[in-house]
């Protein structure tokens, strides 16, 4: 299996707080991976690290055998969990702006996704509903022909119809033969059918990394129950100490 991203003993501190503690992780090509864990467990920091937006205090982060730097942005598409568009743009203008910023941006694909998600091209970003802004955000992200898509909470705060649309957009417009998707999420029950693998984080540490089929085949439960049992067993261990 071809490894795309390789992290070795990554430590990241914000001041004296350790956001990531000794994280070692391999991400293969062509997988859809869910990143789960409580708030503050290090999911966003891990995604930013892989996107080259943060540098580790120690350890190494490599993409395709080379150290991850800010320049890796040309092959990795990162979608933050904040709404940081220029609100005076129309959807069309936003697409044009993205085209000027990213070499791998495919305008036709962007329009196709926006249409697939039923958002009018001529509407102003500021007049869009939260759901439609979520749709536009995923559209301009997936319109990049990147090797890896890093999505920070793509479903968070959106209603079920929008979540369903975004799921379908993800399946329709990514190619699992060559592209990898890593997304952080709290909606594990809903997102599980989209995933090949799940990474569970807690307190800046990866406590489990498993294939969804294995969880169901070997443990005989769905990802949600598996995760709950991980946390319960973890807490019991903590009590013994």
């Amino acid at each position: 299996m071809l490894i795309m991203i390789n992290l070795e003993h990554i430590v990241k501190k914000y001041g004296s707080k350790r956001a990531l503690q000794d994280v070692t992780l391999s991400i293969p090509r062509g997988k859809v991976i869910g990143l789960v864990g409580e708030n503050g467990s290090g999911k966003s920091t891990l995604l930013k690290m892989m996107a080259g937006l943060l540098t580790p205090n120690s350890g190494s982060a490599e993409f395709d055998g080379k150290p991850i730097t800010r320049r890796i942005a040309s092959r990795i598409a990162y979608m933050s969990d904040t709404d940081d568009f220029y609100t005076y743009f129309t959807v069309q203008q936003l697409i044009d702006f993205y085209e000027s910023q990213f070499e791998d941006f495919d305008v036709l694909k962007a329009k196709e996704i926006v249409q697939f998600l039923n958002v009018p091209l001529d509407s102003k970003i500021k007049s869009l509903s939260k759901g439609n802004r979520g749709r536009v955000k995923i559209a301009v992200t997936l319109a990049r022909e990147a090797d890896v898509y890093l999505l920070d909470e793509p479903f968070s705060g959106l209603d079920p119809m929008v979540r369903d649309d975004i799921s379908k957009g993800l399946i329709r417009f990514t190619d699992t033969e060559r592209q990898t998707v890593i997304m952080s999420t709290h909606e594990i029950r809903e997102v599980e059918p989209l995933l090949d693998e799940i990474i569970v984080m807690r307190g800046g540490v990866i406590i489990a990394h498993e294939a969804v089929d294995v969880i169901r085949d070997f443990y005989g439960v769905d990802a949600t129950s598996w995760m709950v049992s991980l946390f319960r067993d973890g807490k019991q261990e903590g009590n013994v100490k």
Partner: protein
Amino acid sequence: MSIDFLPDKPIYQQLIDRILGDIMRGTLAAGEKLPSVREYAVEVGVNANTMQRVYKELEQMEITETRRGQGSFVTEDQEKITALRNEMKEQLITTFLQNVAAFGFTTDEIVKCLQERGADND
């Protein structure tokens, strides 16, 4: 709309059962073309890798066949579909009879019950 999956069985397995059910009921006819992997994945809301595995396993079971450049088709071989139906029937009955025994019913008692049900439905 996306479908709901049972929690205790791999999703690909549930999709295989779903397609086998469609074939046995005739919703998918012998020789009929299946949607592309991507289309079907979008329709039911699962990862394309999962759907790829489903199609591969159906092909290994010889229930579907892939024609180069054209996609996947349900087998035209009626014997294979009949064999599949018989096999599923046997499986259902075996599981059922295991439950019957586990709850302490006798097979005769249950057969009588089933016959009455059958008569009601006719």
